[in-house]
């Protein structure tokens, strides 16, 4: 029979966090946001580099792209999500997440759908291009990616 030990965990975090002087919570969050903003330029460059690598290694023009490791494309996509913290538009992260969902499903199902990947890479390029799609345009784009993914999952399996 499994023996379960249940015990009180001392909350060291609470003891330290609310002891002594410090910052107001709202000021601490505001300071963190200011600090995060200083990384925006570097993060945007990283996003651009990841998209360029996606195109260079998995784009339509790449011969033998089907022989490459799909997990590498997945990692490039998550690296875009990582870097999106301080940058706009937020839809960039949504598009990258949609690509992750697509790849995750494809890797699990063992079936591959390049046109859907190409559309996601194009969407990422568009969102990173600086063209102002407006909030409505961005939402529509993400919704379209989601519909595409659901459709492909239903059709391709």
């Amino acid at each position, binding site marked *: 029979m499994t023996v*379960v030990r249940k015990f009180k965990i001392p909350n060291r975090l609470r003891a330290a966090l609310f002891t002594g002087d*410090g910052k107001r919570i709202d000021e601490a969050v505001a300071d963190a946001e200011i600090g*995060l903003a200083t990384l925006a330029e570097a993060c945007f460059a990283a996003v651009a580099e990841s998209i360029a690598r996606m195109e260079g290694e998995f784009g339509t023009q790449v011969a033998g792209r089907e022989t490459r490791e799909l997990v590498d494309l997945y990692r490039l996509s998550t690296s875009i999500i990582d870097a999106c913290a301080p940058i706009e538009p937020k839809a960039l992260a949504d598009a990258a*997440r949609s690509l992750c969902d697509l790849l995750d499903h494809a890797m699990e199902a063992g079936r591959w759908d390049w046109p859907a990947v190409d559309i996601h890479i194009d969407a990422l390029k568009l969102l990173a291009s600086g063209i102002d799609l407006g909030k409505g345009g961005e939402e529509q784009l993400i919704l379209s990616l989601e519909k595409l993914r659901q459709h492909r999952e239903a059709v391709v399996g």
Partner: protein
Amino acid sequence: MSSSSPKPPWAKVNFEDLSIVVVDDNQQALDIMIQVISGFGAKKISRCLSADEARKVIGDTQIDMVITDAMMPSIDGYDLTRWVRREAPEQNRFIPVIVVTGHTPRRDVVKARDCGANYIIAKPITPKTIMDRILWIAREDRMGIECDVYVGPDRRFRRQGPPAGMPGRRSGDLNDEIGAAVEPNMSQDEIDSVMKPQKVSV
């Protein structure tokens, strides 16, 4: 106000004396998280580019919190959390562990909960989300559970919601109902629902 009461935004938090380990194999993601917690006022931050590095730090020093990426080569964030709960020195075995990940399919959220993590946070991170979760952990009085199949904070505990003075959550958050998630990628609130009120399987 008791120590476990929700804190209003004008309450003060002192990160200066907290020893925090941040783990991510992506240098830029590491910079982002460190920038955020430095902004909160944290000074004692250990930067680790791998779970191996983190294990050395956690093995040698008293730590107050670990924030780790989920997807890392060799040892991932889930295995690191499992190691903390089962093999770290006694003083660090039940420290708060927050897992951060870019992609949150339900199976990974459940994995994070079942490896003993306190919370899983979806990237891209925001300072507010990180602060909220740290305050949630600071307010909690979760019991520790140790058995053959699970070591970590009790997965059955009262849902308290966001701290007072921090209305709502991130846009896109959904309701509290477990199992409501139908999207492959879970929103932050769906994640919190999975992490919070489940029963321990023993």
